[in-house]
């Protein structure tokens, strides 16, 4: 069974080797004293500003947790979709109930303004 994943495994190995090689070569071959421009973290060509440890607002948390919840919804829908025909009407009704319930949750979230960035 695991043999199925051999190509995937090889891909990982190749990726690791290439990535590791670049870092190692850069360390040994590259010019040592970097100029300040080169030492800067790359941020789309803009100058970096502010500290590394920026405090995010709590809004990110709410968005992220709602994302997780609806992500899990999709996790359940996927196997249902693969079995759609064999499950028949019972399966359809089950999933309808599930989606309606989480639809209510979505409407709730929406109405509560949790999807709006600036309240």
């Amino acid at each position, binding site marked *: 069974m695991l043999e199925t994943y051999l190509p995937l495994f090889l891909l990982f190995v190749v990726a690791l080797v290439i990535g590791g090689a670049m870092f190692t070569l850069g360390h040994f071959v590259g010019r040592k004293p970097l100029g300040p421009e080169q030492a800067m973290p790359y941020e789309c060509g803009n100058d970096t500003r502010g500290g590394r440890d920026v405090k995010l607002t709590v809004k990110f948390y709410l968005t992220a947790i709602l994302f997780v919840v609806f992500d899990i919804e999709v996790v359940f829908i996927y196997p249902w979709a693969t079995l759609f025909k064999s499950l028949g009407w019972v399966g359809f009704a089950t999933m309808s109930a599930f989606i309606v*319930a989480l639809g*209510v*949750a979505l*409407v*709730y979230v*929406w*109405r*509560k303004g949790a999807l709006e960035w600036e309240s």
Partner: protein
Amino acid sequence: MDTSLMSSPGVMMLFGLSPILALGLGGLLLMLAEAFGRPVVAHALEAQAIGAQPAGPEGQIVDAGAGRAAELALGAAVILFAGAIFSVALWLVGPENVTATERVAPYLLIDRFSVFFSFVVCLGGGIAALLAGGYLPEHRIERGEFFPLLVFCTLGAQALAAAGDLLSLFVALETMSLGVYCLVGLRRTSVRASEAALKYFLLGSFAAALMLFGAALLYGATGRTDLAGIGEAIAGLSGDGLEGRAAQILIALALLIVGLAFKVGAVPFHMWTPDAYEGAPTPTTGFMAVAVKTAAVAVLLRVLLVVFADERLGSWGTGWPPVLATIAVLSMFIANFIAGRQESVKRMLAYSSIAHAGYVFIGVVATSRSVDAQASVLFYLLTYTVSTLGAFGALILAGRYRAEAVSYEDLAGFGRRHPAAALAFSFFLISLAGVPPTAGFFGKLYVFKAAIQGELYWLVVLGLINSVIGAYYYLKVLVFMYMREPKPGAPFATPMRSGYVATALVIAACFVLGLGILPDTALEAAVAAVLGG
């Protein structure tokens, strides 16, 4: 029951699941109602609080919190009481006659045991919703989320009591717990509430993880996840099979007991209880003290009596009874001693709920030896539910915005300021203390009787000693209410007026009195509800 409508399996299925479905659908409707209703406006509440409302007599609906929270509270209470009524209807028809629900077995077992618990937790949740309808507007906690959360928590508690499989057991436990964590932390501006929620959440997750580990070990030992199947597999073990798995099963037993004792809040797994109970809004405290505890005891009973019923595990010498007896004794003594030294009444009630967990555990221990013990535990939980919620409700009624009744001093002279509420408070406290003719007396009586039947005399003696210790701090409240006057200049809590809280108190008082005078009906129901009975 032979009408054509009722014989259809689909309808019977709906009927069998109606207590749970009522809460699920009702909760969704409540969410929509909350989301689409007009927002809570703080100044409207402010205007009400200043006064201009008729001072009605006790029990009459006095419009204290006509804000949104109050409407939602009414909705939640209707839903939860509907759940309770559906449970009663299902009980009268007899869950064993509703064979269609076998299709959801073993994940949800719709038997008399689960229907009984469904009634108790719905009743507790409904009363808590009414309490919140008075408490939240009064204390400016403009959080409509409270009510859908409460409904879904109660649903989780129902499902927990009905769970007959490790999978559904864990999901139901998490549904209940997750909601309660949020209910505790609802008052976000309060540092104390945040601390309470965080403590409860971290320790609760840890306990859930231990329990999950225990469940995994059980699955590893038996290859089953349904409780009955695990029980059979364990009973069937012998010789070599037993040799390899005994340690595994014992560790699983220990982990499950730890996890559930945590949810019950029994010593030594009680550390979170006082802080969480004190920091939470009082209706939440009441809900945690009754519904969460009740559901956890239900699942503990099911786990012990179905999975670990084997005589090697259920016997006094080699099984769980001595462990639970130790927990019971520790809970009673430690909680009662600390409760007596509290200055905050709310904290005292928190410790008192730990002590009551101890009394309940006496009954649970006695199930290993006495047939009546299970029924006594069920009856005790019913009496405890109404008495505790009543006490918390009276405490709510004793305080106002920014002047919540917390300490004994706050209650000084309460008997004169608000005679009806003080009377109700005294009544619930003597029920908690176990004085006749209240529900609490019969609750304790039956538990001790079952323990005597099981020849656990020493446990009964220790329980009686603790009842006396407990009476001390319950009566201390009475002393302050009736025999002390507030010190001159000392801040004391002025009582609030709320029809919701008053209604909740009346309902609780009816139950306390009814169970105290005529305990027979409820006791018969409890006897009929026992597992394997």
